[in-house]
């Protein structure tokens, strides 16, 4: 009896110790993350976040969905269906504002205050993520959708010395490329690519003031002005320098033209660097990059954020806060940007790992006056779509500049 009681007591103590030992060991904070970064380069990039998160005591469960629209739709449907992810990717835009209105997102104010986001992040990004005084998204990168990439051997062959300093000089370069027998401008004729090209011309030829008046203030007079007419005309002029096979072409096929020396220039976002490096071409050596014309050219700011669906589960909230902290931390930002081709969202990072195009972008970002928010940040997805329709019509049909101007004005009215 005695020994049995002793045995029971001992095993009871041992069991109690074991249980508390287990509880004392921290449970990894599981995070289901939906995003659309599925290609090789993008996967390597998001792995930086996942690794950093796992090291910080989390457990990253990946839910990648290719196609930005599908990924967002999946996230929204899962939230509505009662099986929300821990975090979901959106663009730095108004896409997630409806979710905020419906009360479907948690805010990350605690992280924002602790990490002092208001002091670190660029103004345009802060305006996108801070709604009604609360921070609802963690920004993770800055992409510039309108870089000019060109093939150095092709430029040399056409006798072009350096980066063009103005739009007219650019057109002159395109003429030289045409004479040299290559496709001057490699464009994939899809509506979103045409819109990017238009926005590049708009920012450079129209200037930041006109740009903001139109996209941010939706000023009808600005749209109906002669300056805007000039923007439209300059945009349409580029059509002479695009090849006949352009309509429908994927953006990577257009980059392939530049890579293989069949074309001179492509206007595309800095994610295009991934295609170049997949073809083992180096910036500065095999291809050149410049963000606009002249030393004061505007720098369009676009990017991606992660939002945090509403939940009252304490563990999930901890996981969300940890994610927000890790993804915006300096080390993770640099590691991510190096693989992604984007630039970090905070200026206080070590930029030596990044390529020269990114370094140039970071230097430009330090000058607040050159930053221009992407149209997505200023317009609802619906209006951005309507304007894209106007632009693609103008580009592909024989529409007069006046008619295009009228159509743009009417679409902007909403």
């Amino acid at each position, binding site marked *: 009896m005695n020994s049995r009681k002793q045995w029971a007591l001992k095993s009871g103590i041992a069991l109690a110790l074991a249980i508390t030992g287990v509880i004392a060991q921290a449970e990894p904070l599981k995070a289901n993350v939906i995003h659309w970064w599925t290609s090789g380069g993008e996967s390597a990039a998001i792995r930086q976040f996942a690794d950093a998160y796992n090291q910080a005591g989390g457990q990253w469960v990946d839910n990648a969905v290719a196609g930005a*629209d*599908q990924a*967002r*739709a999946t996230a*929204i449907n899962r939230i*509505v269906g009662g099986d929300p992810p821990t975090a979901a990717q959106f663009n730095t835009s108004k*896409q997630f504002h*409806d*979710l905020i209105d*419906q009360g479907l997102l948690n805010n990350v104010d605690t992280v924002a205050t602790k990490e002092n986001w208001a002091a670190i992040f660029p103004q345009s990004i802060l305006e996108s993520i801070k709604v009604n005084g609360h921070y609802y998204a963690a920004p993770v990168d800055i992409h510039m959708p309108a870089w000019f990439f060109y093939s150095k051997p092709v430029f040399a062959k056409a006798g072009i010395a350096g980066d063009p300093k103005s739009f007219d000089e650019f057109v002159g370069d395109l003429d030289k490329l045409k004479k040299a027998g290559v496709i001057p401008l490699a464009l994939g*004729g*899809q*509506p979103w690519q045409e819109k990017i090209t238009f926005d590049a011309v708009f920012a450079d030829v129209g200037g930041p003031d006109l740009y903001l008046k139109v996209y941010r203030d939706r000023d009808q007079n600005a749209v109906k002005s002669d300056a805007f007419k000039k923007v439209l005309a300059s945009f349409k002029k580029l059509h002479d320098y695009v*090849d*006949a*096979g*352009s*309509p*429908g*072409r*994927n953006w990577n096929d257009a980059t392939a033209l530049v890579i293989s020396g069949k074309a001179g220039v492509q206007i595309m976002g800095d994610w295009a660097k991934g295609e170049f490096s997949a073809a083992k071409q180096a910036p500065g050596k095999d291809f050149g990059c410049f963000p606009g014309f002249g030393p004061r050219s505007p720098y369009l700011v676009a990017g991606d954020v992660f939002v945090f669906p509403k939940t009252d589960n304490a563990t999930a909230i901890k996981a969300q806060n940890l994610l927000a902290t890790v993804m915006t931390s300096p080390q993770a930002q640099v590691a991510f940007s190096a693989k992604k081709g984007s630039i970090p969202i905070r200026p206080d990072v070590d930029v030596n790992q990044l390529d020269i195009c990114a370094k140039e972008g970071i230097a430009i970002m330090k000058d607040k006056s050159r930053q221009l928010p992407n149209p997505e940040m200023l317009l*609802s*997805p*619906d209006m*951005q*779509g309507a304007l894209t*329709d106007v632009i*693609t*019509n103008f*580009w*592909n*049909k024989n529409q007069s500049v006046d008619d295009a101007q009228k159509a743009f004005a009417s679409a902007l009215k909403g």
Partner: protein
Amino acid sequence: MGTLKSHALPPEMTASRRPVAARRGRPLRKRWSLAAWVALIPMMVTVVFAYLGTMLWTARVSLSNSRTFPSNDFVGFTQYVRLFHNDRWLVSLQHIAVYGVCFIVACLVIGMLLAIFIDQRVMAEGVLRTVFLYPYAMSFVATGLVWQWILNPELGAQSLLHKMGFTHARFDWIVDQDFVIYTIVIATVWQASGLVMAVMLAGLRGIDDELWKAARIDGIPRWRVYMSIVIPMLGPSVSTAFVLLFVAVVKLFDAVVAMTQGGPGTASEVPAKFIMDYLFGRANIGLASAASIVLLATVLAILAPFLYARSRSASRKEV
């Protein structure tokens, strides 16, 4: 099947003529009607909760100002007005009409021909059947890209013709505003004809061997047998194939996205893509719902006379 001509009226209709049988038959009729209704419960539940429910919900949303989520902000027919002032929507309707006619006719003809020819006891029938059916098995995201390459004037057919020496040959439909919709016809006919062939083949295989023997004895030439007897007997198969194709036409989306993204400009825009764009990308489910209702109403308008004629002849076997 060809030997049967009399179509007896269903028992319900004859019961009144035979009172004795009716007395015996009424409980019987109720019993077997009951079994049929029980068996149809899954269908009725689905129709009410899934389909009818969705149609009513969509109609409700189309009367509101909903963006990403359904809202209760009712605005009457504003979305419909906006819809019919939207150039993209209007051209998408034109395109789908042109596409629909070409696609359905081409698939029916090619599918029927393939089925008839394969039915001729050819060698390697299994291989041939798989060759014609495999396009249906493949995801159109990849095959659409391949067709885009083949039809691209600088990568595909036109450049091949140029290299072969026909320097003035032109096959750049895919970049041409007026002809791009026909390139979509080509690629989707490639994908769907095999399925039509399978449906027709199933019908052909259901035809009594006696018929062939009888025709051979009578000395009728084979092609005549086909034209006058077999093809009319394939009525149900053609009707099935027609509905399958019609559904595919209305839902046309993957092909357009993979091949042209609706371009050049909006020259190959189609209603399903319009709806998808506004549903997901542009976060305007109000407009997307209005477009869906208009599409559904159009389909109903086209199908209703067809279905009405069928139900009129319900006392005979439907063909």
